[in-house]
């Protein structure tokens, strides 16, 4: 999994059936430097089932395990290599255990 911030949404009418009606979100991946998170400049498109909004920090499950994000038996025909698995409220970044509240901090 990786951390990212939702920066946009992709709209597509013509799609493979394996997609279902889930939303596809643009997620900019985040990296850590000291006690700050900053965007790496890489962007991944991830399917979203849990209603992530613009600006939310999320975890993205990656690879063939991404399908497991969607509840069975609905996921039987889902083919996806990236899916938003949770919306992050806060994380600890450094050894001091300081909590960074992500949903209220710009970055």
């Amino acid at each position: 999994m990786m951390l990212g911030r939702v920066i946009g949404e992709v709209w597509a009418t013509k799609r493979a059936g394996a997609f279902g009606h889930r939303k596809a979100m643009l997620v900019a991946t985040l990296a850590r430097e000291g006690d700050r998170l900053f965007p790496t400049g890489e962007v991944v498109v991830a399917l979203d089932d849990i209603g992530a909004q613009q600006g939310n920090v999320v975890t993205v499950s990656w690879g063939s395990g991404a399908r497991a994000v969607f509840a069975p038996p609905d996921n039987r025909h889902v083919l996806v290599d990236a899916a938003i698995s949770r919306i992050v409220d806060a994380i600890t970044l450094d050894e001091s255990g300081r909590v960074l509240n992500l949903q209220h901090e710009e970055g």
Partner: protein
Amino acid sequence: MILGQVVGTVWATRKNPNLERLKLAIVRPHFWYNPPHDVDHLVAVDQVGAERGQDVLVCVGQPGRWMAGTSAAPIEASIMAIVDRVVMGPSTEDGTP
């Protein structure tokens, strides 16, 4: 998945039997997370009918292989959707662009 643009098509007469009847498209990614090769394009199986110039979503790796209906096919990227538009920034209250 990767957001990219279809820039061409690949035709091949002699090919692996598992690639029969599959259309191949050349996709140049707008963004690419952790690219496996040092090239600026990838060749993806197209089962949604994308045309040159269209933006598409490309699924890579094992899930992209399943798109062909068999895990035996030598595929690592499949076009999953043709993009109508990309919305960046805040959307309206009802969620529509």
